[in-house]
């Protein structure tokens, strides 16, 4: 295939749109794993669960984005419950917990996956909306509207979350508990409650991420396995706990994937996220903006 600047430019534009989406999908993990040190490999599975919930609500007539927003409160509560369980079962019990925590979340991810298969079957599911199926024309380029919509929602979501973390009291408390739990306890705040709240937010955000996921393309129950690589790559590349880093890392991943797709073909694209992850872990494990 011949090289073409036009194609490269389109790939970069596409990569930026996709990258912002990846960042929004990973930002929940940035909080739960990056800040709270919870080995949450079930994060993509919960997001896919969110996609299916969006599918159900969209079937009742709701616009997918509205459905995503409507799902945020119940998912927030779900997150709080999950964290409470995790805390009682693992974090309380000490050092061995990390190893078993990972196994636990893998088990949870499997259960969610099979639950979705039993409930919906292995077939792909999609939603319909006015903005799915059309494209914007910018000069010679045609950009599918669904990517632009996901990009927009992702930006709004991430801005909102970043502002929350830096401007509000609870947000700053979450950051504080990540840095120095003892000090926080001495100041009279309950670290467990703050972490629980944070995990709830991370899960609530995943609901909207799930809605974006099914807008961008069809979903099927095993889709979480594809996103484990992408989300952890973004979070590790960003540096654990950095919100702005997540956006930068997402863009890097999105653009790299897009260029590999264009130049080397679709069969190499799945390895990009993991390849990037291994490179980061090997060279600079603390990531771009790590603490």
């Amino acid at each position, binding site marked *: 295939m011949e090289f073409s600047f036009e194609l490269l430019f389109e790939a970069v534009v596409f990569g930026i749109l996709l990258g912002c989406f990846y960042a929004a999908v990973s930002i929940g993990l940035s909080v739960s*794993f990056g800040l709270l040190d919870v*080995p949450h*490999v079930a994060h993509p599975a919960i997001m896919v669960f969110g996609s299916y919930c969006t599918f159900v609500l969209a079937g009742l007539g709701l616009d997918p984005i509205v459905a995503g927003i409507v799902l945020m409160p119940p998912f927030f509560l779900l997150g709080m419950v999950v964290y409470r369980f995790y805390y009682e*079962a693992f974090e309380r019990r000490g050092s*061995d917990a*990390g*190893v*078993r925590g*990972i*196994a*636990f979340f*893998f*088990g*949870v*991810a*499997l*259960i969610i*996956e*099979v*639950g979705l*298969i*039993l409930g919906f079957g292995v077939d792909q599911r999609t939603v319909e909306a006015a903005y799915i199926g059309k494209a914007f024309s910018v000069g010679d380029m045609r950009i599918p509207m669904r990517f632009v919509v996901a990009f927009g929602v992702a930006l709004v979501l991430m801005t909102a979350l970043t502002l929350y973390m830096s401007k509000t009291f609870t947000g700053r408390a979450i950051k504080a508990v990540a840095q120095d739990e003892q000090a926080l306890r001495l100041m009279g705040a309950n670290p467990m409650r703050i972490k629980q709240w944070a995990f709830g937010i991370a899960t609530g955000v995943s609901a909207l991420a799930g809605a974006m996921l099914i807008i961008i393309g069809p979903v099927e129950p095993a889709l979480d*396995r594809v996103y*484990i*690589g992408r989300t*952890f790559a973004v979070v*590790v590349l960003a540096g654990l706990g950095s919100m702005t880093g997540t956006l930068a890392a997402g863009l890097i991943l999105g653009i790299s994937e897009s260029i590999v797709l264009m130049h080397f073909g679709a*069969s*190499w694209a*799945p*390895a990009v996220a*993991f*390849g990037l*992850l*291994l490179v980061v*872990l*090997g060279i600079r*494990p603390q990531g771009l903006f790590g603490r």
Partner: protein
Amino acid sequence: MRFWILAVAVFLLAVLAAVMLKNEYYFFAGYTVLMFVVLATAWNILGGYGGYVNFGTPAFFGLGAYTAAVLFKAFALPLALQIVAAAIMSGALGFAAGLLTLRLRGIFFAIATIALVVIMETLFINWRYAGGATGLQLLRPPPIWPFQSYTTMLFVLMAGLAVMAVAIARYIEISWIGRGLRAIRDSEEAAEASGVPTLKLKVFACTVSGALMGVAGAPMPMYLSFIEPASTFNLNYAIGALASPMIGGTAHYLGPVIGAVLLSSLQQIVTVTISNEVNVLVVGVMLVVFVVAAPDGILGLLRKIPWKRS
């Protein structure tokens, strides 16, 4: 000595079953159970003894399977040599991967091992000679005398490999290597400080573990007469290899055996009677239950029961 008597007895039991049972489906399902015994035992060397929880089983297993398949396609290599080649290739991968990743802690190591699986899968998706994403059809040679059925032969072979794997795990466990690994699991810094050669031991464990997983994978292409990347490098193997020791108990070489036999047999029964999906649910639920409620596995539970009054 007691161990070896038991081991030979188990193997003879498998041979007896091969002679007496007529329905081939027992061997078809039994092969999978025995294969997971090998995978679980191999996983436990690094994961249980050393404390390095890894999800890389499909990478070593798959590499073993593809090594066997490609050598069979290219040179019609006999099965015994395929297994040896698979052990060498997967052992080498274990060595290299160990050097690169064993400096990472806890969850980073686990995620890096998943990365390894996806990269291996992508490599084989892009290798046309090995079938690419389409897969490879393979015509088996006739079974070796005195076996009439190839599946039965593979069953007895896997029984032998399982005995060998458990023997190796037992040797590591009771030797100074096992002591060193346990020291690393309990506290790596303390082990370093007291002069334990931690990196060498970890890489050794990773190499042996990888080689055994490759051995478990080598007969797979002949078992199915077909191989393709998506199912060969499936993360379900990672979870099965990890769940079995966690269910059976990670501290002793019998733990993975008990866990694998229990879990895999349950899965086979569920697949035949209910459906294929529910068997994955079984793994997920059992993993969660044991990890939360019985962290030392079945062996740990058994130890808590007062067997003897001294």
